[in-house]
């Protein structure tokens, strides 16, 4: 892992920033969908971090609280310290933020029109299907481990039947896993 001093020249940092600006606009469905392209750029093309560092970056961000997009900051940090994290995070967020704000205002001003209503009504089932698919993919590593599969099922049941906050379910999962039962 790189220390506080940036290992990259200013022009390399600019290239890193530019690459993530571009990826932002391609990240339909979340930043994680562009992970293969990020991997190609920082690991294969430039050799700034190793393959193992890249995989660990994604794992750390998933274990920590907060949006999954934070793995982008971890990659930047591992490439070039704080300046690297700043370059990748601002790169991945700036274009999509500008576009989101513009689109939400445009759509909200026209929310009663048939076009906008058809769009949201039409996309809603796809959104739900995608959400279920995300859960399915996340449950992938649990397949074949009875303890993990029981945890997935118990979580679904408890969340549908009670008002328990998800944080307690996560804490239970950590305890069960640390005990070696997952």
């Amino acid at each position: 892992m790189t220390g506080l001093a940036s290992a990259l020249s200013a022009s390399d940092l600019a290239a890193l920033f530019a690459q993530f600006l571009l990826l932002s606009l391609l990240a339909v469905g979340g930043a994680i969908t562009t992970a293969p392209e990020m991997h190609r750029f920082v690991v294969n093309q430039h050799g700034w971090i190793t393959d193992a560092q890249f995989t660990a970056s994604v794992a750390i961000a998933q274990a920590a609280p907060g949006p999954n997009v934070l793995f982008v900051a971890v990659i930047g940090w591992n490439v070039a310290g704080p300046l690297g994290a700043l370059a990748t995070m601002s790169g991945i967020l700036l274009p999509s933020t500008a576009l989101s704000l513009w689109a939400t205002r445009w759509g909200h001003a026209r929310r009663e029109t048939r076009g906008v209503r058809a769009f949201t009504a039409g996309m809603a089932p796809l959104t739900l299907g995608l959400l279920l698919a995300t859960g399915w993919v996340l449950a992938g590593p649990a397949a074949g481990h009875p303890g993990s599969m029981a945890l997935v099922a118990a979580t679904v049941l408890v969340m549908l039947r009670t008002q328990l906050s998800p944080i307690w379910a996560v804490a239970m999962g950590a305890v069960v896993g640390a005990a070696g039962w997952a």
Partner: protein
Amino acid sequence: MIDTAAPAQADARPQSLSDLFFTFNRMSLQGFGGVLAVAQRELVERERWMTREQFVETLAVSQVLPGPNIVNMSLMIGDRHFGLRGAFAALAGMLLVPLVIVLALTALYAEFASHPMVSGALRGMGAVAAGLVISTALKLSTTLRKGAMGLGLGIGFAALTFVAVALLRWPLVWLLGGLGPIAVATAWYRLGR
């Protein structure tokens, strides 16, 4: 599906910029393995800032746009209530503290990674995170009943999406570019009747 505390109307709204910031901060800090499940619970069931239908609509739009879904959602909700300042208050709430935590973890990671209790805990948390997302999808599926598509078509499109993405592993762009227009055209036709 049971309706646990889902308002028929959004009967509350954020009171101030700091209300936005701290609500999104609280949400983000509870979000292990993704914030969406927590967001649904906090925004719809606890704060009652939006209905399930509004939540799904906002999520639908943020999924079509590039960028992280939950980040796009926080921008949209913040913007709707307090304009640009609201958007950035929500965004900062979502990102600032978790960013500090994840970078601190990065610095410590090398020491933790190989410990079996730590990797076991991560596996357990991962399984729960999967269960949280699945239960959120099931809770939100009650919105299909009220959609312009009708229940049958709604379930059909949701099932097709699930099969394409979860089982066939289609790239998302294919799905949004292929099935998306068909679904929107169907909704357009039904809204006109």
